[in-house]
């Protein structure tokens, strides 16, 4: 198993009456709520937490891209990952990812990710999401019905740019470049690529065609994810490729304490903050018309945020969220049992552990993280013995002798 400690970096200072006062955490929430000096503290605390996760043994540390929101404050995940290259040395840097349809030209992604891979000594996991509709369409203005075509072309360009050793011309519909010439190029000739997906068959096939890992980033827990992941594994079987669990990953909110009761006491308010403020997206922004294909909508695969809008989070208690396995929370033993069930039922080799939740303070984040690393993770390591805890195709290949990093004072 590979465990990535994943940060969303939410704004932790939304007021108690947030839901009543604002229709959406995304797109049109006035940024007067953002206070840069408090942002300074939050950013550094969040980066410290990612570095701490490496120190306690997580395999990867993760960041992602969002725009115009208080849900996740990383318009540029590459800037965050760049800071981590200098302060970590072992963990994979899981950038999940760059919304490649948004970069003009998308060659920028090939260049920046190559920089990250070189800086980190070959520790980059590259994620290529389409991006949420809030980000891609409403905040960044991409025409919804053309988003996927633009994405596919950007992907094509990036792969070609990484593979080429000489300049070449790229005549796309959306990007035309007479000289594509990616300096620097990545240490890993092709970094492992993770694709966040939401249940469309096209995305299953895209991952299988390219040997990319399919990542389902859900906040509604593994019970509700079962159907979708079964669809994925059914497709894997139909395509007659191997069933490596590392072909798939799942994001899970996890809270560990000494006892189940302590978990509720410590984390209850922060979980509530996450589900009721961070996920409070105006339904009109969740799925711009044309963003999803008709085929995908007909399969009932709605976005995480459309689902959130349709769910009754305000009236869900801690017990509802825990019993429904939206969150995996409790004592190390409780969490171990549930995580084992999650890993086996979804057949996933990658877990994106969401251990900072909503407005959780630093000491609780570290406490929960340490308990998970020390008392849960070791018991989950070898759930796929036939794969020996690793699949070379879906994890990083760091260089042998990276430069030893020193702080400036040394």
């Amino acid at each position, binding site marked *: 198993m590979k465990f990535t400690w994943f940060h969303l970096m939410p704004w932790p200072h939304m007021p108690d009456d947030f839901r009543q006062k604002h229709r959406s955490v995304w797109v049109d929430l006035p940024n007067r709520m953002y206070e840069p000096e408090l942002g300074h503290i939050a950013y550094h605390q969040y980066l410290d937490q990612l570095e701490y996760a490496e120190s306690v043994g997580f395999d990867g540390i993760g960041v992602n891209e969002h725009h115009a929101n208080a849900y996740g404050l990383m318009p540029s995940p590459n800037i965050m990952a760049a800071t981590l290259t200098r302060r970590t040395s072992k963990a994979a840097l899981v950038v999940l990812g760059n919304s490649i349809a948004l970069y003009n030209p998308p060659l920028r992604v090939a260049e920046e990710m190559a920089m990250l891979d070189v800086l980190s000594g070959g520790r980059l996991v590259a994620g290529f999401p389409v991006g949420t509709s809030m980000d891609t369409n409403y905040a960044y203005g991409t*025409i919804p019905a053309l988003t996927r075509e633009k994405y596919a072309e950007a992907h094509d360009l990036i792969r070609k740019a990484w593979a080429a050793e000489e300049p070449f011309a790229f005549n796309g519909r959306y990007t035309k470049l007479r000289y594509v010439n990616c300096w620097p190029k990545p240490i890993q000739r092709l970094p492992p690529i993770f694709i966040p997906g939401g249940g469309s068959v096209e995305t299953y096939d895209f991952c299988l065609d390219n040997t990319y890992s399919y990542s389902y980033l859900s906040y509604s827990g593994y019970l509700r994810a079962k159907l979708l992941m079964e669809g994925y594994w059914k497709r894997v079987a139909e395509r007659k490729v191997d069933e490596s669990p590392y072909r798939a990953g799942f994001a899970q909110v996890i809270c560990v304490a000494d006892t189940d009761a302590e978990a509720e006491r410590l984390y209850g308010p922060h979980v509530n903050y996450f589900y009721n403020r961070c996920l409070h997206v105006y339904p009109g*922004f969740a799925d711009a*018309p*044309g963003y999803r294909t008709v085929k995908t*909508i007909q399969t009932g695969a709605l976005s995480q945020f*459309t689902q959130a809008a*349709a769910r009754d989070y305000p009236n869900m208690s801690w017990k509802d969220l825990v019993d429904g396995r939206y969150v995996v929370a409790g004592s190390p033993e409780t969490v171990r049992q549930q995580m084992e069930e999650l890993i086996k039922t979804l057949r996933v080799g990658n877990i994106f552990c969401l251990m900072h939740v909503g407005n959780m303070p630093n000491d609780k984040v570290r406490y929960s993280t340490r308990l998970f690393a020390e008392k849960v993770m070791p018991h989950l390591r070898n759930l796929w013995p036939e794969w020996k805890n690793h699949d070379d195709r879906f994890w990083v290949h760091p260089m042998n002798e990276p430069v030893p990093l020193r702080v400036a004072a040394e």
Partner: protein
Amino acid sequence: MKTRFLTLKPSGVRIQVIEAGKGRDLLYLHGAGGHMPADPLIAALAAKYRVAAPLLPGYGQSTGEDGLRDMLDITLHGLDVLGALKLKKPIVVGHSMGGMIAAEMAAIARTEVANLCLLAPAGLWLDDHPIADIFSKLPYELPGLLFHDAEAGRKLLASGGDMNDPEFLKQFLVMNARRLGMAGKILFPIPDRGLGQRLHRITARTLIVWGTEDVLTPPVYGHAFKRAISKSKLVRIAKAGHAVGQEKPAAVLKAIKEFF
């Protein structure tokens, strides 16, 4: 009203066309919402004209939306449909998005479009008078945005429904993905694809019609169109919103009859 299908060559795209009435030829291009059930404007126009109302790819049973990506694609598609319908010196009427397409057609093809009627057309953007973002609206918000009399509009649209009902949500998303997905190619995120630079090319006699209570595209846009098109007249219709033709079909028919 009856339906027939055109097959465009060489693409093989099938276009659904609603036809009604007898008289002088009139081409009607719908707005981003498509035709309304038993569209009151088409019904009114049919009393005086032979109306041909094609549905844009992505609407109704018309196909071919994947081949249309930008304003030029859609403008030329409009001219292809006009040609395939074999209309004689038609009055080309377009509402909202359809008005934007009709104006583009008139700017590009002066001989084909010599008589133009724009009903609250899209296509311009004034910073001081932003147009509402129709793409992020929920179904229950639309009647108030499109009609002066929102209650009557609600009945006409026969929409409504409960976004918390997963089945309704799915149907709404499928319909919207096709229609507004297509409309988004020229209207999202700002409904301006440079028409303002081309309006001066229009030589057609042009009637511009605006509802005085249009809250989606405020009436100030009517004056902007009027100023930019040389042989044009602006008619304002009282107690009408953005769906001016559906809300006041008789008044719009009267304005068209008097002008052409």
